[in-house]
Every structure is written in C-alpha cells, then in structure tokens.
C-alpha cells in the first residue's frame, strides 16, 4: 500500500511502485444538458488491471479524463491512495496517461519524450531511467529519433514508456491500441498485460473492444449511459451477465422473453412462447413474473430431430435460416416460432452440418441459462460500438 503522501503544492513525492487504490465517490459530469457520467461510485484496488468497457459516448473516456485531472467533475470526489485529489490539477496528480493519439511531443527526441515527466519532477537520473524504460519496450535503439520517424506501434510503445517511467500511482490508458492493426493489437495486448504484471501498477484501461478488455483486465466494468451496468472478473461477467446490455455488448447472447410459471426449489421454469425453459435461481435476477432467459450461443448443442438429448435440458426447435461453415465450426441462425432468431454454432466434430431450411433441435443444460429482469430490452447493446 501507499505510504508516502503527496504534497498539495508543487511537485509530488515519489509514489510506492505498487500503485495505489483509486476511489470515485458519486462522481457526476455534466456538459451543458448532457450527463456524461452519472453518479459513479467505484473502487479500484491497488495493482489491478481494470478495464472500463463501453460503447462510444458511454462516459468511459470522461471518467478517465476526470481521474487524470483533465476534466473537473460536476460533483463527487476522486481519491488516490486515500488522498482526495478532486481539486488538484493534472500536473499535481500522481497519474499518467497513455493518450489515444499518443500525443508525443513532435519537437523532442524519443528519449526526451520519455524523460519529460522525470525532468519535471526533478528526478536526477532521469536520462538513465528513461533509457531503461525504452529498453523495457524494446526501443532503446530509436532513442534519438523524432516521433514522426516511428511507426504507429513504435509510437504507441514510446507513449507507454513515457507514462510508465514515472511509476504513477495509477496509469490510465485511453484506447491505447485503437490505432493499431489487428495483429499488432494482439501482440501489444500481451505485452501490456505482462508489463503490468511486471511493474505491478494500477492500470485503468478504457476500451470499446470487449475482447481486449477480457484478455487483459482483472476486473471489467461495463459502462452504459454514464453508469456502470455491471462490474466483475471477465469470466463472471461473461458467464453471468446481469443486464441485457452486458449480455449483448460483452459477447453474444440469445435473449428470450417469458413468464415464470413454476418454482422448482433452486430453479424456476419460464414459459417463453410455449417453450419451457429452466434456469437456476442463483443465476437469475427475476424469480417470478416476467423474465428474460438468456443463453450464450456456444453453450447450445445443435441436434438433428431424431438425435437423443438429455430430458433435463432446455430445448428449442426451429428452422435453419442461415448456416455458414467457418472450418472450426458452423454458425447457424435458427428461426424459432414465437421467439425469433437464435444464433448458435456447433464445433466441427466431423458431423455433416445442417442445411438452410432444415429443422433442428437446440439444447442446453439449465445451469447455462441466465435470467434477466422481464422489463429488459432484448436488443439492448446489441449494435453498440
């Protein structure tokens, strides 16, 4: 934990290398008549890789900018390591940012860019430390170049080194991989994660790429319309979404509206357009009345009508609208009477894929179902980017 304190005026003291807890208390940010962040309360424990995930306009970047001190919250408090920094200007905060545009100083060499923060703090061995940071991102051989002479991926790594070298209490990453191509992105994701593990700092990563968030973060907070919809470990969020937005934005989901008709003790049965679907109570928000039953596409098995299936499984029957063979698997869109289109796929185990127009059975074990509030919009977050 943090032991040093930041002086209120002038330059701050060096922070413990392990980062510090970050706490947002009832933070709201309004721009004119638009509420970008709405009463957000959030604690990020020290040393965590934390991802703020959401579509554009959800308030994630505004949240990040408020932590950095680049925006002032309309109300609420921000504290780092137990110290209230709400009123501090960005240059007084022990926080560094990797900007989406990198924002490298074009008139300075790569080395001068990386040493900039250390020099401002009056660190004596700023140049050797900047060199060490460049070594960490494997760019020491480009130290004397100007930023324009570097590729996008190299610039990204300089931006990362420039922020990391200061050992901030909290490192903020604003869509840092957004400008890179897919292959470089994957590579940088792995690198970022390993650097974070190595230095043990608190990372706050803003992204709209759910795969990126899930690959790297210890904790993911899904944001929508200025609020956190759900927060947790990537696997928990994926396996048990609590809202339709999370179910659709984080991966894909099939959501079916229905009414709870039976109480089975630790499970409930839902009637969805005549289909009896069972889901465990501890995986459902709704235990009575209207409910939405959800299931992830990969949890379903696609069977031909004569195939046997477990009698305890949930089962839907429908007509194949579209089947696309991708090699590893075949992806299906299946029209189910009264429910709509269900997306699913079956792994290629050598079985012949179903054809368009075929009638198929889709089954899944009840423990894979999740239940949402009946008032949820089944399409929420589906097209959000």
């Amino acid at each position, binding site marked *: 934990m943090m032991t040093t304190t930041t002086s209120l005026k002038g330059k701050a003291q060096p922070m413990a290398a392990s980062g510090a807890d970050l706490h947002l208390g009832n933070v709201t940010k309004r721009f004119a008549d638009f509420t970008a962040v709405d009463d957000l309360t959030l604690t990020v424990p020290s040393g965590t890789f934390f991802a703020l995930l959401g579509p554009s306009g959800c308030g994630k970047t505004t949240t990040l900018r408020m932590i950095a001190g680049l925006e002032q919250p309309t109300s609420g408090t921000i504290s780092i390591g137990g110290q209230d920094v709400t009123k501090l200007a960005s*240059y007084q905060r022990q926080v560094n940012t990797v900007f989406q545009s990198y*924002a490298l100083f074009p008139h300075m060499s790569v080395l001068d860019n990386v040493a900039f923060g250390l020099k401002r703090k009056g660190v004596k061995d700023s140049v050797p430390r900047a060199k060490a940071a460049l070594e960490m991102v494997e760019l020491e051989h480009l130290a004397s170049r100007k930023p324009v002479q570097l590729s996008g991926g190299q610039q990204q790594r300089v931006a990362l080194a420039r922020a990391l070298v*200061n050992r901030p209490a909290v490192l903020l990453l604003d869509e840092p991989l957004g400008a890179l191509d897919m292959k470089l992105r994957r590579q940088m994701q792995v690198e970022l994660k390993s650097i974070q593990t190595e230095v043990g700092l608190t990372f706050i990563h803003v992204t709209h790429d759910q795969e990126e968030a899930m690959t790297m973060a210890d904790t993911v907070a899904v944001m929508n319309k200025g609020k956190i919809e759900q927060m947790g470990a990537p696997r928990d969020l994926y396996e048990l979404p609590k809202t339709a937005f999370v179910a659709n934005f984080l991966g894909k989901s099939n959501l079916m509206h229905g009414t709870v008709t039976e109480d089975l003790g630790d499970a409930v049965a839902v009637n969805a357009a005549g289909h009896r679907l069972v889901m465990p109570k501890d995986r459902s928000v709704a235990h009575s009345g209207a409910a939405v039953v959800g299931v992830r596409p990969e949890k379903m098995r696609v069977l031909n009508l004569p195939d046997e299936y477990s009698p305890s499984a949930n089962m839907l029957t429908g007509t194949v609208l579209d089947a696309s063979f991708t090699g590893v698997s075949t992806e299906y869109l299946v029209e189910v009477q009264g429910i709509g289109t269900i997306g699913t796929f079956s792994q290629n185990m050598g079985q012949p894929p179903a054809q368009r127009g075929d009638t198929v059975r889709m089954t899944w074990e009840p423990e894979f179902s999740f239940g949402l509030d009946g008032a949820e919009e089944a399409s929420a977050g589906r097209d959000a980017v």
Partner: protein
Amino acid sequence: MTATGSRPRNKKKPASVHLRSEEELAAERRKRRVGLYLIIPGMAVLALFFAAPVLVLLSMSLYARPPGAEIGEFVPALEFGNYVTVIGAYWDVFLRSFFFALIATVAALLIGYPMAYLVAVRLRGRQLMQGILLVLLIAPFFSSFILRTQAWKQILSDEGPVVTVLRAIAILPADGHLTATAFAVVCGLTYNFLPFMMLPIYANLDRLDTNLLEASGDLYASPLTTFFKVTLPLSMPGVFAGTLLTFIPAAGDYVNAALLGNNRDTAMIGQIIDSRFFKVVDYPGASALSFILMILILALVMIYIKRFGTKELF
C-alpha cells in the same frame, strides 16, 4: 514574402533498373518543360520589378556630380566615394533604425503572441469569438497607414488622454511630452507592424495539437512549464516568420519617424533616404543609402536565419 531558407533540393533519383521507353522519357521531358514555362511569369515579374530597379539603384549610387553641374544633375560614373560619404554622415542613423526596429519587433512579439494565443488556442472551437477578434485586429488595416499613424499623433499629443493621465500620476513630468520622442516612434512602429507579427503566429498556433498540452500537464508540467517546453518551441516557425515580417519593414520605415518623431534624435534611415531623394535631390547619396540598407537587412536576416532557423525543428 520572406526568406525562410531554401529547402534542400531533391537528390537525383538513382538510375532506374528497367530501361524506360522513348515515350516515357519524352513524357518526362515534356513535364519538365511545362514546369519551366510555369515559372516564367514569376521570374519575369521579379526581373522587371526587383532585379531591374536594384541594378538601376546600384548604378545610380555610383553616379558623380560633375563640377559646375546644376542641382539634380549627375553623370554615370564609378564614384565609390559616395558610399564613404553617406556612411560617415549617417552610420548613427542606421544604428538607430535597427535599434528602433528591434525594440518594435520585441514589443510586437510580446503583445502579438498572447493575442494570437488567445484567439488560436484559448478560443479554439468558438468560431464566432475567433472571427470577431480576428476582424477587430485586422479591420484598422483597411484604412490608410498614414492616417492611422496620424491618429497616434493625436493620441500621444500633449492634450491627449495618454499624456494627461501620465502627467497626473507623475510618470511623466508636468512639461513632459510623448510626441516627437523616440518612444512615440517605437510605439508607432509596434502598432503598425503588429499584424505582421500576430498573423503568422496565429496561423501556427491554430494548428497546435492541444492533446500535447494535456499530455504535458499529465507529465507534471505546470501551465507555465508547458508553455515554455511545448507551446513556444512548437510555435517557433510562426515566431520566426513574424519577427522577420516585422523587423524588415520596420527597419526601413520612414512614416512613423516622420510623423511621430522629431528632427534631432529620432530620425530613421528611411526618412534620410526620403529627404535625400526628394528634398536635397542627392540621387547618388540616396541610392547608396538604400543599397546599404538593403545589404544590412539582408545580412542581419541571414545571421538570424543561421542562428535561429527553424528548419531543424521537426
């Protein structure tokens, strides 16, 4: 406009491996010819309105006055003594001119930079405010240079508001003046050339990426440090162009000195050249002075470019 240093020419391309056909070569030759044709008008204008007058000036500066000639009567000669004479007589005026121009340039920079910064950076995204301010700054220049300088004479006159106030608060003695002083001349120069300072800086700061300012603040630089470490270095090309565009005309200006100065200790070289041409009718002397002024400005600008040239900035 101004000399900001020539860019290095493109090096010749290495001989291409594949042999080009006759048609390709002909097309290339044609392209090159078209390029040459296109610079002809520009060259012609320069030759007619710059090179020719300079040559006339140079030759006239060497004319001699034959014994017993009438006023204004000179004959072609190689009278280098003209240069010795005018330098001997007016070296102090040259010094003063450059000194006044320097002070005016620095003052215009100190006034123009913050104004440019306000409009280009602080008001970024507020186009209405930006437009209004820019028009306000430029509008006075739709009226005559001489009229505006004349107005300054009124403003700084003994009965004017500035002198009254300065006398009242005892900054100026009760019998002190502002008109007919060096101060008035420098004020006039600063005012008249301010837009030439401000506009290039504005054009430069308008392109400044404000993300860089945020990044600087994020990296522990106070707003003042950010200005000196990021904003100012990045705007140096604008400052460079602005100072040249201010200094060069200010050094040769005579209107401000004539209207706002006196006849004793505020004369600028432009004024001397003016009076030698039109009052004393000493064409060779006036030409020699003009030529010296041109060479000196050129030399100063060359030194300035060598010393502070911003080509290497990026």
